């Protein structure tokens, strides 16, 4: 009997494949110690889950690493990866990345013996990502703070876009009604951390960096890295932060509330 994943499990999986796993590249690039490990690597690394509804019977995100350069192919299956972590179902993958690690959720690991060094390095990146995004308290040093804020911004912009592309009712309804608009996330003094989502008549695109074609319709702007982490790690209250000027809404507040709701939706799926 073929069991298809529920809508909620599918959406959760799309967040992992399309928004969370691409952060592997960011972490591997931004932490010099990890970046060094891939300087001489040439490999295709894939994380997949068996899914009868997927093309080739599985869903996957894979990375092509070439001398330290990373290409990310989200939600696309490579038929001959050098290394593969294959979960037995979408549910198993979701549970694993939500921290429920056990015999039922562990993936099959292929290519480990042939590529032990690359496998070990890749696992270190995954563990670092898990530690970063799962932390309950903000990091101490500025470099890690910047990396974490960037990861959260990318996760949220891509996550909202994935929800739209995969038919999340409320998000898609919102996107359908939208003229060509950009919503952005930013921290004062750190333009390199910015992320945005462009929305137009049902279509969305998550982008990285500052959007420069026009002024974003709405920007969720933080006055500092600590203020950003306060909201992103849910240790600060949005209203209090706005009143105190730690969070600045550039644009109409009603649209800020709306994007804030979708940020919480993404967080709900990913946690």
């Amino acid at each position, binding site marked *: 009997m073929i069991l298809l994943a529920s809508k909620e499990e599918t959406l959760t999986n799309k967040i992992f494949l*399309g*928004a969370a796993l*691409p952060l592997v*590249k960011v972490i591997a690039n931004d932490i010099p110690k990890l970046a060094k490990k891939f300087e001489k690597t040439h490999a295709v690394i894939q994380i997949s889950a068996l899914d009868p509804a997927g093309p080739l019977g599985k869903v996957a995100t894979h990375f092509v690493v070439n001398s330290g350069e990373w290409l*990310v192919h*989200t939600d696309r299956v490579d038929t001959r990866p050098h290394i593969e972590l294959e979960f037995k179902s979408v549910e198993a993958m979701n549970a694993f990345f939500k921290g429920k690690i056990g015999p039922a959720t562990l993936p099959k690991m292929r290519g480990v013996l042939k590529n032990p060094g690359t496998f070990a390095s890749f696992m270190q990146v995954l563990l670092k990502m898990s530690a970063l995004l799962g932390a309950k308290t903000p990091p101490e040093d500025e470099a890690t703070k910047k990396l974490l804020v960037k990861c959260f911004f990318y996760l949220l*912009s*891509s996550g909202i*876009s*994935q929800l739209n592309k995969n038919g999340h009712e409320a998000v898609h309804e919102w996107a359908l009604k939208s*003229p*060509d*608009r950009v919503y952005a996330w930013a921290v004062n003094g750190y333009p390199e951390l910015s992320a945005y989502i*462009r929305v137009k008549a049902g*279509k*969305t*695109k*998550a*982008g*990285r960096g500052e959007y420069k*074609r*026009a*002024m*974003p*319709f709405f920007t969720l702007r933080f006055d500092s890295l600590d203020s950003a982490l306060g909201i992103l790690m849910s240790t600060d209250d949005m209203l209090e932060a706005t009143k105190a000027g730690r969070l600045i809404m550039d*644009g*109409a507040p009603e649209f800020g509330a709306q994007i804030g709701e979708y940020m919480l939706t993404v967080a709900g799926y990913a946690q």
Partner: protein
Amino acid sequence: MAGGLTYTAVDSTQLSTAEYYGKALCELGREHPEIVALTADLGKSTKIGMFGEEFPDRFFNVGIAEQNMFGVAAGMAKAGLVPFLSTFSTFASLRSADQLHTDICYQNVNAKVIATHSGTSFGQAGSTHHAICDMAVTRSFPNLTVICPADGMETVNAVRAAYATPGPFYIRINRGFDRVLYPSTDYGFEVGKAVTLHEGTDITVIACGSCAFQALQAANFLDNTDGLKVRVLNMHTIKPIDREAVEKAVMDTRRIITVEDHSVIGGLGSAVAEVVVEFGKGCAFKKLGIQDQFAPIGLHEDIMSILGIDSNGIIDAVREVMKKDFELDDNWDDEV
């Protein structure tokens, strides 16, 4: 005078833009004895007659001879006086174009033309009294500053600024009955600097004259009904145009609509378009105004509605331009 008034005398006193002009000029006249006023037999209609009642020795009616009035004004200015001369916009810009061009602008004299009944504001008087190309003509004259105030308060500011700034001015005001945009003169008027009436990042509507009020009405309506955030700029100074505000509008909103009670050829829309093209950044663009035709004859509000330069016309245009693409990127894959 051609008729068809639908307002009471009280309304006309409260709302007439020219009335504000007359009062402002009298105030200036009390402070500055070098100010003189000239009319071509339209003292009452243009309200410059108010100055004549208070300062009969400094008021000159040259008769129905506009060209002479401009020549006389140029001579007075050369002699150290500051002449304010008023007639209908269509006569000031067309019948007297040669004298305005050569006697006043070429000599760069300190004369101030306050042209009334501009655009289609004297709609019921017919096409001979519609000034639909005065901005196109005057803004091409070197040395001339061209201003199109939005209401009475802005007219006061413009008249004061004209006195305070050496060189020739052309200020085009309506016959009257303009909707009130500003409750006072204290809102930061500056020659050559647009005033932001409504903030927004979806689209920018750049308007002048009576269309500025209509644009603000449209922006408020679209905010409430469509959730659209429309930036509205009151571009009161047509020359020198506020390049910075136009360029910022291009960069911020990438969609611009201009609205004017004037031909779309040569006026505000053309001035804004020149800046946009020279700036070199793409944006969706639409000009609202009189589309290369003579305007219909009737009451101003009706004509504005027919021409699509009232709030309803602006609302329709905003909805249309919002559908246009400014972003060439049609790849909707998320960046990773």
